[in-house]
């Protein structure tokens, strides 16, 4: 039995899954059940007391979901993971473990518009105060640190413009401040960037995007890097203090380097309730098996489409980090050498009206509010995902009125370019 390190594609197919003990089924079965029978009263008590490994109720854990959790933990190089109902649910569950009312967290200003809304409005109502910083100005993160700061949140490749964040530089700020760095790795997927290798302590995903990859299932996941020491200074009582919900167990002491993932499960998911359907877990797991193949094709197509757009007379500018002339190309070469992702924006000389006209003329690109599908997608962020922001905030987050966002799929690139060409010709 050699201790060899299998490659990424092997893990994408195998990690977490083995033939079913009862039936021999080789594909992961969908354990579509709410609950699991106990062996006896003692077994039940051990499971409820977190003393034994096993299943109780699908809101706390499910065998299909567990395969997905181990798969993504392995791909990200983390110690454990927790799957939840959506990417947004992952963000709530993570911050619930870290913040008390009145606490602060620092977030990069360039984020998915839905996350900007969630942080600004929903989290505000919980008393979790977001402080914005500019990922292009690392010093702005340092300046935002206060004694109430409990975490820093960034996206590896930021929605919508596909800009690349300097994860290592921000992780240095987090370490100095003694707070964990949370990285939303949705747009990169671990095939392109593994944030834990660059200093992330927690990775979150919307599985809805490239990991699931087929636009058919919502999901989210939280990966624990096992790197953060939760015991210092009583700053993270959910992890360091005896938990009254579990007869005084201290999670870090009991679970060591995967205590954060356990806290998310037994204090977050159990009590807040955003459980992932086992059916969705199955769909997403099936998607992950081909992640390396799909992601490479997404990136290669995106680069070809970006190059085409950059040379088109109707296009004012293209923001794709994979282009040598792009502001983020240096960071892309460092963090995402296999490709700069497949979500990016471009702006049209004809402004807002030209954007609306383009979207209406496209035949292959679908006009909808998602990214990371096999199909190519297009949206006008200013009137949709980012519509709740004011104009200044739109421009700051890369979603000005003249901007169109693409999520390039895995079709033949010639067909995608032809579709854009005919739509721009009008």
């Amino acid at each position, binding site marked *: 039995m050699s201790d060899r390190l299998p490659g990424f594609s092997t893990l994408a197919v195998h990690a977490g899954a083995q033939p079913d003990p009862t039936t021999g089924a080789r594909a992961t079965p969908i354990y579509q059940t709410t609950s699991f029978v106990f062996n006896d009263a003692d077994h039940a008590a051990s499971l409820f007391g977190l003393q034994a490994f096993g299943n109780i109720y699908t809101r706390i*854990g499910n065998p299909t979901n*567990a*395969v997905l959790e181990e798969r993504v933990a392995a791909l990200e190089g*983390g110690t454990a993971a927790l799957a939840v109902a959506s990417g947004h649910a992952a963000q709530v569950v993570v911050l619930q473990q870290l913040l008390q009312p009145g606490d602060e967290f620092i977030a990069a200003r360039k984020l998915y518009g839905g996350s900007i809304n969630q942080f600004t409005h929903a989290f505000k109502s919980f008393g979790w105060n977001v402080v914005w910083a500019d990922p292009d100005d690392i010093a702005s993160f340092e300046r935002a640190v206060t004694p109430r700061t409990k975490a820093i949140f960034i996206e590896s490749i930021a929605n919508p413009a596909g800009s690349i964040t300097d994860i290592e530089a921000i992780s240095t700020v987090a370490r100095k401040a003694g707070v964990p760095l949370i990285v939303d790795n949705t747009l990169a997927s671990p095939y392109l960037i593994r944030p*834990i290798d660059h200093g992330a302590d927690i990775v979150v995903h919307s599985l809805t995007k490239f990991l699931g990859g087929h636009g058919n299932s919502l999901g989210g996941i939280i990966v624990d890097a096992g790197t953060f020491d939760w015991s210092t200074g009583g700053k993270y009582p959910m992890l360091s203090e005896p938990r009254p919900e579990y*007869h005084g167990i201290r999670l870090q002491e009991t679970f*060591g380097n995967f205590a954060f993932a356990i806290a998310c499960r037994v204090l977050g998911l159990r009590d807040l309730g955003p459980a992932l359907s086992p059916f969705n877990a199955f769909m997403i797991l099936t998607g992950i098996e081909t992640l390396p193949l799909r992601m490479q094709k997404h990136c290669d197509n995106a680069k070809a489409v970006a190059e085409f757009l950059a040379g088109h007379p109707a296009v004012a500018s293209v923001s794709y980090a994979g282009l040598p002339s792009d502001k983020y190309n240096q960071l892309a070469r460092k963090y995402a050498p296999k490709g700069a992702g497949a979500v990016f924006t471009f702006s049209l000389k004809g402004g807002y009206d030209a954007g609306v006209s383009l979207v209406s003329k496209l035949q292959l690109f679908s006009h909808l509010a998602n990214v990371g599908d096999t199909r190519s997608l297009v949206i006008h962020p200013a009137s949709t995902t980012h519509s709740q922001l004011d104009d200044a905030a739109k421009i700051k987050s890369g979603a000005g009125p003249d901007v169109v966002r693409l999520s390039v799929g895995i079709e033949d690139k010639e067909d995608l370019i032809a579709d854009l060409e005919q739509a721009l010709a009008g």
Partner: protein
Amino acid sequence: MNHDAYPDNYIRGILNSVKSIAMVGASPVNVRPSYFAFKYLAQRGYDMIPVNPGHVGKDLLGKPFVASLRDIGRPVDMIDIFRNSSHIMPVVEEALTLDPLPKVIWMQLGARDDAAAEKAEAAGIKVVMNRCPKIEYGRLSSEISWMGVNSRTLSSKRPPAPTQGMRLSLNRMSVGGGDTAASDRAAKNKSEQS
């Protein structure tokens, strides 16, 4: 032995070969980690001996407490120390007076004493520090995967359907320590700072 990151084969070899385990600091309080590690290892077929001078006269899951390692009165394969780092050395020194010597000294999650480890290793005893045998058994058997933990192992074999109290196979293909290297590095940095 590099005590920052153990090869899976080292841990696997220990858990596959030891039969009796004396747990120093075993607690009868059922929310303490030592209690559930004791219970789990007993269920997986290890011959468990609780060592705790504060509870002599009582028993833990049917096994009588003894006050010290010397009071066990028979050879033990492994000593699992559930004490803080600062209380490790006297236990190791006592272990070194046993005849025959134990084959393994294991210090719990959070506990590490490099000087004590060196002494034990000089006497030919294998040492594991800052790990939990329950977690490692659950990881190498992949039983811990129910909790979304990265077992760092793979297998294409059909396992037997588990029944209560069954010994589980630990002989799965290892992904190596490399896959959670970030966590190992963080632990090393912490132990160097303290």
